[in-house]
C-alpha cells in the first residue's frame, strides 16, 4: 500500500504550492505516472480521496497521464517499447533493456481557485 505514501506526498507538494499562491481550493491535479512506476492507479485514487480530506486538495480531481515504457535493447541498441520488466526485444530477440521512459512519478500542474 505504498500508494498511501505517494498520495500523502502529492498532497504535501500541491498544498504548499497552493498556499504560496493564496489559493482557496485545488480543483485539479495533473500527474504523470509511468507504466513502469509501480503504482496502481485505482489504489492511488482511493488513497488520495481519503488522505485529502480537510486539506486544500479536498475534492480535487486527479488527471493522470500515463507515460508508456520505453528502453534501449542491450544487444542491438535499438529503442523498443517496454510494457513490463521482462520484455524481449522485437528486433533481435534479446533480453535486457535499459529503461529510458516509463518510471515517471511527477506532478505536472495544478488548477487552483
Amino acid at each position: 500500500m505504498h500508494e498511501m505514501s505517494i498520495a500523502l506526498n502529492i498532497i504535501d507538494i500541491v498544498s504548499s504550492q497552493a498556499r504560496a499562491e493564496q489559493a482557496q481550493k485545488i480543483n485539479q491535479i495533473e500527474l504523470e505516472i509511468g507504466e513502469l512506476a509501480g503504482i496502481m492507479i485505482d489504489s492511488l485514487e482511493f488513497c488520495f480521496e481519503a488522505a485529502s480530506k480537510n486539506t486544500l486538495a479536498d475534492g480535487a480531481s486527479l488527471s493522470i497521464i500515463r507515460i508508456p515504457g520505453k528502453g534501449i535493447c542491450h544487444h542491438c541498441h535499438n529503442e523498443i517499447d517496454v510494457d513490463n520488466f521482462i520484455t524481449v526485444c522485437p528486433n533481435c530477440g534479446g533480453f535486457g533493456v535499459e529503461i529510458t521512459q516509463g518510471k515517471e512519478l511527477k506532478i505536472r500542474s495544478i488548477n487552483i481557485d
Partner: protein
Amino acid sequence: MCDTCGCGQPGDPVTIRKPGQENITHNHDHPHPHSHDHTHESEPSHDHGRTLRVEQDILLKNNLLAERNRGYFEAKKIFALNLVSSPGSGKTTLLERTIATLKQEFPIAVIEGDQQSLRDADRIEKTGVPVVQINTGTGCHLDADMINRAVHELDPKDQSLLFIENVGNLVCPALFELGEAHKIVIISVTEGDDKPQKYPTMFSVADICIINKTDLLPYVDFDLEACKQNASQVNSHLQFFDLSAKTGEGLDQWFEWIRKQVKPS
C-alpha cells in the same frame, strides 16, 4: 495527518527504539466517515481557476533525504546495504550468521524494519552489535526519513558496515531510496523460482540477489538456474549468491564480497 492510514488525526505512527526501550504504539482510533463506494467521474472541465505548472517529482522529498543519507555514509565511509525480501526469506538469520563471522574484522551496525515488535532487534542485539528497530505501524516500507532518524540514534562508526533490514515486502520498498550503496533482494527456495517474474519491480532495482535456504533444494520444486535466468531477464546486471544461512553453505563467497566492498583494496 496520520501517515499510516491517511486519516486526519495527528500523530507519528513510526517508532524508533533500541532493544529494551519502552514500547510506544500507534493506537489512535480510526473512524471512517468517508464512503468506500465512491466512483471517479469523468474529468470536470476547469474553465475557472488558474493552472500552475508544478513539474515536481512526487518522491523528491524522499530522494533528497536519501541523497543526504548517502552523503553522510560516504563521508564516514559507511557501507550501507538495504535488504529487501518477502517475509520469511531468512534475512535475520543471514544477518546473524554474517555478523558472527565479520564483526571481528570491522564494525557492524543494523537498522531493523518491521511493522511491529522488537523481535528482530532482540535477535541482532544478542550478536553484540548496535541495533535500532524501526516499527512502521501499518506502513509497508522504510523511507529515507526513518533511516535518517535511525542513523542519528545508532551513530554507526566510521568505516563500518550498516545493514538495513527492510519491512518484509517485495513490492513497496522498491520505490523508496534510503541512501544505501546497494539493494539486495533475497528469495528463499521455498518461495518458487518464478518470483522474479511475479515481482519484477524489486528485481529491477536490486544489484544483488541472494537465493537462500539452498539446503532445502532436494525437498522442493525449485529450479535454481531457472530462477537466475528469470531474474536476469528482468535485470541483466544482477549478481547472485546461492547460500544456506542455516548450514553455512555458500556463505564464504558472500562474506568475501562484503569484505571487498567494506575494505576496497
